[in-house]
């Protein structure tokens, strides 16, 4: 199964070895469509809704969500990307480098921002993302969409839209990719 090198997620420099596939590509597509419906329902349409994908895992997910929103509602929701490296609370404790440049589509003040990430774990990335967002304006509301909620939260943060709730052990690793979602371990 899939083996991928993960440079900046713990444990560092290891290789991810997948044990089981918990979602297939079709499951991903269905979950994405459902989440798109929920976003439209919750916000009574897509007026002033902006999707912001978190680097790196949330970025492809945000554009797939945008495609689903377009197919359902016929509306092109603006899509941006956010790198939270400079806002993390573990700078100096672990390797931290931005994966890509942040791109925010227009002014966020007064709009509804849907943060999109692949996996919700401790919640610390989302904490950093909320700080980062605040530097780009005062959003009217911030919502959170994740493909997998794997538990083990360390902060009072909860998602608004979830692809799949997946109970995990702390030392397991969840990997979301184009062909589905894998559960496995890191090998040094």
């Amino acid at each position, binding site marked *: 199964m899939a083996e991928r090198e993960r440079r900046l997620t713990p444990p560092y420099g290891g290789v991810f070895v997948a044990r089981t596939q918990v979602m297939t590509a079709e499951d991903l597509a269905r979950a994405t469509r459902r989440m798109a419906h929920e976003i439209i329902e919750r916000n009574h349409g897509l007026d002033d809704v902006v999707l912001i994908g978190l680097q790196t895992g949330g970025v492809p997910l945000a554009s797939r969500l945008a495609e689903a929103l377009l197919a359902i509602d016929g509306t092109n929701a603006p899509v941006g990307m956010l*790198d939270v490296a400079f806002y993390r609370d573990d700078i*100096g404790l*672990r*390797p931290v480098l931005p994966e890509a*440049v942040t791109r925010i589509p227009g002014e966020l003040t007064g709009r509804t921002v849907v943060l999109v990430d692949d996996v919700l774990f401790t919640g610390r990335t989302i904490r950093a993302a909320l700080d980062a967002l605040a530097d*780009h304006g005062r959003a009217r509301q911030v919502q959170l969409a994740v493909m997998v909620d794997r538990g083990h939260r360390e902060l009072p943060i909860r998602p608004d839209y979830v692809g799949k709730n997946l109970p995990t052990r702390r030392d397991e690793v969840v990997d979301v990719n184009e062909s589905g979602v894998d559960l496995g371990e890191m090998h040094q």
Partner: protein
Amino acid sequence: MSAAPARRRSGPARHLLGMSDLGPDVGAGIDEVMTLTDSFVEVNERQIPKVPALRGRTVVSLFFEDSTRTRLSFETAAKRLSADTMTFSVSSSSVKKGESLRDTVETIEAMGVDAIVVRHGSSGVPRQVARWSDAAVINAGDGWHEHPTQALLDCYTIRQHAGSLAGKRVAIVGDVKHSRVARSNVAAFTALGAEVTLVAPPTLLPPSLDGWPVKVTTDLDATLGSIDVCYLLRMQRERMTEALIPSLREYTAGYGLTSRRADRMAADVLIMHPGPMNRGVEIAAEVADRPNAVIVDQVRNGVAVRMAVLFLLLGSGTRWGGDDA
């Protein structure tokens, strides 16, 4: 009394003393800085150009030589990363009372600083400071030796305007002998695959160019037609203890980028200068304001590049730069 809490640091202090600290493959090291600089350029374009990355860190600038742009650039960079900054300027310090460099460094060190930005008129001072100090040391120009952050911002500026340095022909014109900028830039440009030509009168070249991967000529006019970047060095009048050129006017006649010479270059040749400019000496006043003169961009990019350097040394947690045991 309990012991002071351990400072947040992963591994030994890392330094940027010269281009070779960027790693065994200098080109790859420069690429890493450039990629990170892209992120900081975006930060600098924001309405609030500040991120909390280096909150609680202290950066000291220790300048034994006059400088406005480099010191301001480093301090702006540190502030935009939310670090605290302190300035040590020699004219108002105990150095005037006869304090030695070592005592000065140890005094600053005792206040608990994370990075020291050093400029000094003598080559090798930053390396010496790095030996005495646990903080990360950044060379902001030492004597005739190196000025690595200038080279990095020059690479970034060329890349921004010309895409890449690979295969680009760069002329470095003027007082190479006294220029730390030229030394760092030769190392940086050639590491990225550029062809570098030094253009200078023989008296303004270093005594030996052994091992420099460059071409050398004394004829600026013959060079102008076949370059992509024209990098002018400042005539360092304060370092001219001996009569190396007959007069500034004669220097301008042979090596200044006059309007007539600038007209003979292709319109997209980048005109660069590390500043401060002597308008009318190495560059004509009007030439410095042409659209292909990117001197202001160099200054602008300097802040983002120095943010990248500070972040790599203090924040990224990745091993980078040479450890001077």
